[in-house]
């Protein structure tokens, strides 16, 4: 029984919405946790109160983002079962088990420590708190690792065979360490760190620009700019590594990303020109127009002057991914990666010239504005990158093994619409709420007056200890929960 094409389309839009909204939040959780650990470690070692104030301030932003991440993440887990029931059943033996590990070894791990990190100030020792922050950073990274293992397996499924309607694992190691994950996980982790650094840079730059608490924000601005320059550079390299991986294992996806239709041109020469921009023709058999750079495609993808890159037309018509979206999302991501590096280098140059000190930093108006405005870019890049990856995999849900329409639940059009509308409302509310509260926390600024949290010495309230024996009439509290 095949589901209605319209309901498939609606369900796919729905899942696209759910995953696109979810991916806005975890990268900041992952990267900001690492940065928060850095700030807290600096406070722990130097006792410089400014690091403490920064920790508490950025932690407020962290909480807002984390709440949104949890809300949209629970949605993801359940959406697999609801919108992709047959896929969940078939891929469950591998995919479901990996997600199961994620919930136990990462999600639960993180949830356990996050309460202590946020509310434990003053109630637990400074060392214990630092440990909690470390574990939040570690567990959210682990979480990303498991998710990327599961997603990479969908891109390059290995170690399984499809039998009796399900994927049976024949080799766990091969399935877990599938060819895509070694390039994709570092790329995603770096994206999370890069996005978070941009976020911290933007917030610090905004305060310096406004000449508010410059004493507090100029120093982390300098540090994060240097880190951002390094991370952005490594990320560009890592993106290239992932590109080579896609070329090797998902040639159709790469062809769509590059708008490469014909492997050879009419004269029989290798089609080595890189399309900077272009638009497909009506039949989707070639580009109607494009701006090309000769030899650039071969150089980028094969690292040779004339290496052949397989074109879309050499794949069966029903196995070609759409072109326009991956083509442009890929370009957007790459362009943003370059732009971020340039701004970070600009900042490093200013610092090197001694113009980013507490006294002088506020004078670099244009630079500070660029830093603040830049904050939207990594978000666009992360979504663009994810779309490149997921749309490039079409029409497969598990590349080369299971088609999307075979993995979908049989929803009626009405039910699919009900889901889409429901999700759209909730997800929009989460996104708008998050933006509003992030801005509000920034406007309110850091708390500079309340006493610094001590070493687990905060008054906990009255404890009713068990009364001594013999006073049975006296109400007895063991330890109030």
């Amino acid at each position, binding site marked *: 029984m095949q589901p209605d094409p319209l309901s498939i389309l609606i369900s796919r839009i729905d899942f696209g919405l759910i995953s696109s909204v979810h991916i806005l939040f975890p990268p900041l959780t992952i990267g900001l946790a690492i940065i928060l650990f850095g700030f807290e470690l600096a406070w722990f070692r130097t006792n410089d109160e400014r690091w403490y104030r920064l920790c508490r301030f950025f932690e407020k932003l962290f909480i807002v983002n984390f*709440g949104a991440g949890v809300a949209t993440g629970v949605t993801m887990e359940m959406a697999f079962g609801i919108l992709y029931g047959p896929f969940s059943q078939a891929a469950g033996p591998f995919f*479901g088990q990996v997600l199961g590990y994620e919930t*136990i070894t990462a999600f639960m791990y993180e949830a356990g420590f996050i309460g202590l990190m946020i509310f434990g100030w003053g109630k637990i020792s400074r060392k214990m708190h630092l440990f909690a922050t470390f574990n939040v950073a570690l567990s959210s990274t682990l979480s990303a690792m498991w998710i990327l293992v599961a997603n990479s397996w969908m891109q390059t499924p290995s170690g399984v065979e499809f039998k009796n309607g399900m994927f049976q694992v024949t080799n*766990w190691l091969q399935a877990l360490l599938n060819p895509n994950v070694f390039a994709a996980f570092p790329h995603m982790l770096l994206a999370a760190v890069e996005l978070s650094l941009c976020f911290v840079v933007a917030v610090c730059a905004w305060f310096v620009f406004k000449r508010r608490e410059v004493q507090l924000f100029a120093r982390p601005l300098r540090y994060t700019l240097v880190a951002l320059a390094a991370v952005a550079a490594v990320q560009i390299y890592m993106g290239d590594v992932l590109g080579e991986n896609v070329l090797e294992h998902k040639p159709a996806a790469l062809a769509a990303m590059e708008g490469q239709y014909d492997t050879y041109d009419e004269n029989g020469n290798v089609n080595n020109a890189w399309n900077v921009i272009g638009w497909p023709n009506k039949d989707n058999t070639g580009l109607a127009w494009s701006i090309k750079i000769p030899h650039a495609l071969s150089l980028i993808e094969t690292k040779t002057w004339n290496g052949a890159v397989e074109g879309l037309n050499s794949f069966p018509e029903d196995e070609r991914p759409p072109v326009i979206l991956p083509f442009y999302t890929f370009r957007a991501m790459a362009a943003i990666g370059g732009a971020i590096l340039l701004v970070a280098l600009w900042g490093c140059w200013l610092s090197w010239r001694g113009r980013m000190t507490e006294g002088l930093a506020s004078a670099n108006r244009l630079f500070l504005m660029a830093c603040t405005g830049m904050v939207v870019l990594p978000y666009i890049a992360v979504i663009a990158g994810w779309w490149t990856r997921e749309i490039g995999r079409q029409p497969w849900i598990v590349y080369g093994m299971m088609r999307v329409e075979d993995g979908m639940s049989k929803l009626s059009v009405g039910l699919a619409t009900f889901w889409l509308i429901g999700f759209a409302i909730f997800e929009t509310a989460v996104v708008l709420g998050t933006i509003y509260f992030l801005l509000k926390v920034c406007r309110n600024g850091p708390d500079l007056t309340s006493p610094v949290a001590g070493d687990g010495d905060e008054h906990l309230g009255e404890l009713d200890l068990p009364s001594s024996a013999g006073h049975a009439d006296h109400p007895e509290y063991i330890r109030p929960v």
Partner: protein
Amino acid sequence: MTQLDDMQYFLANAWWLGLGVAMLLYIILDGADLGAGIFGLVVGDHDERGAIMAAMAGTWDANETWLIVAGGILFGTFPFVYGSAFHYLMVPMAFVLWGVMSRAVAIEFRHLASEKWQRFTDWVFGLSSLTVTFFGGMSVGALLQGFPLVHEEGKLPYYAGGAFDFVSAFSIWTGIAACVAVTLSGVLFVRARFEKTERIRQDAARWTATIFWLAIGSVLITLVWSAAIFDWARSTWFGPHFWLWGIFGLVALWCIEQVRRDTLKDRDLAAILWYNGAVLILGLGMLITLHPWLVPGTWTIREGASPQVSLITFTMTMGGFLPVMVMYNWYQIWVFRARISKLVAYEHH
């Protein structure tokens, strides 16, 4: 459907137990948060509602995690059940999901919002707690009834019924019963969490007696109704081992009697622990009654289990990680154990 060897079958059963324990822990731990949220709907004082949210701020996330863990175990170990049951329950699950999302957002954003918006988040939090509880309870009732599967040669059995097949008098009833039971858990939590002089605690204490009797009635009706309509329940409970089930029932009754005595004597923590004891006993009793079914009449443990469950991965996650996390959860509850007053704001808590 798939052939499991003895070791795999043993592991599937161990995971099934893990799934049951995760579900019960969720009901016990987050049940208190859900119930406190529902109780918040009848609390008139703005600051008191805020204090209820503050009281659970440090732990709600870890509590809710058990639901995610249960989902993870179901997806990982019983993927065929996961895919088909979610298909069957997609409508109530939609409401559970939207409720879970709204609760998370309401509790995380409240302390940042202006007072007008705080009223809105309070309202959202209470209503979404009610939604999660009602549709969650309804889903459990619907699962107890089982659902039809279609088997096609060379394919996995899938659910092919309608989207509203889950609605029945019994499932509507289990939804209502869940709300009553969870509200009792919530008022017990509020009692234990606030200073005895606080008005909110005294309100909660006043509510306890009524809700207590309602909860007992709900459980009894559910058990009698189950025995009346489900062969698997009736034949087990009134079979040759009926005396064993009698003992189960008596122990549960005794726990419930302890709850009543402790609440009358203001021993709030003890009351919660006895209540949780009763939930555990009733829950385990239900699990044992269901065995070897995962979904009665639809999926057995053997048929629903993934053939890929291995001893190594099982030991790593269940033997290695889970105990550490349970200890950690306990430490966390310990850190945030004190009674608070309504003056304690979210920020300073």
